[in-house]
């Protein structure tokens, strides 16, 4: 009993400084084509970088967003960050802005008008 507890204490004081599970990050990395082997340090760095990224994305989106009044970080704050910030551009596909159906239909109509004018 004490041996296992000691191991847990050791893990805590090892101060890996990360919370995300490296095994899960490794799974995601391996799903990338052409990747064969991943060195342990590289795995650690990617995991840590992902944590830093989450912090950065959350904080930047919040600061730039309208959430300051409502004291809430909302999806649209994130979508705005993806569109407006260069560093978050790679997220535009998965964080699309939401528009009202009404507006979408209007823009469709305008596109058709333009096509006719050509």
């Amino acid at each position, binding site marked *: 009993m004490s041996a296992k507890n000691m191991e847990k204490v050791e893990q805590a004081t090892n101060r890996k*400084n990360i919370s995300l599970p490296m095994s899960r990050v490794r799974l995601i990395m391996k799903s990338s084509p052409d990747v064969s082997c991943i060195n*342990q340090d*590289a795995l650690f760095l990617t995991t840590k970088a992902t944590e*830093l990224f989450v*912090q950065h994305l*959350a904080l930047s989106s*919040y600061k730039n967003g309208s959430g300051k009044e409502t004291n809430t970080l909302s999806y649209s704050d994130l979508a705005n960050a993806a569109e407006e910030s260069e560093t978050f551009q790679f997220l535009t596909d998965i964080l699309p802005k939401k528009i009202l159906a009404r507006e979408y239909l209007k823009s469709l109509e305008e596109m058709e008008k333009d096509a006719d004018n050509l």
Partner: protein
Amino acid sequence: MAEKPEDLNLPNAVITRIIKEALPDGVNVSKEARRAISQAASVFVLYATSCANNFAMKAKRKTLNAGDVMSAMEEMEFERFLQPLREALEAYKKGQKGKKEASEQKRKDKEKKNSPGENDKSRDEEEDEHMDDEQEGENEGEEEDVEN
């Protein structure tokens, strides 16, 4: 072996905790935002991996190493991460060294213990499994220690 879709997602509880720690106290995060950030994090891993892999391939290496990841961060314009990453890596390597020495010491101790009862053996087996889980990742880049 079928992969469940959750396997490529990061654990929600951990993501939520990281978000909360980054934001000022008392700020709420909508469920949708949380999910979106989690997905963004997975995409980040993929993007970083692919970028790092390009550096490895350029150097004609098959194994992704720490340098490749750092180069990828620069390429992705996340220079702000470089310093904290370097520091974290230092601490991590020191911790790994200590862990390795500690587990080697434990194995030596176990060899001494192994003479008495079967109860001890089953507990030792449990410990072995646990240690294998920890070392699983380690064996990737480093040589395995051969047990005598």
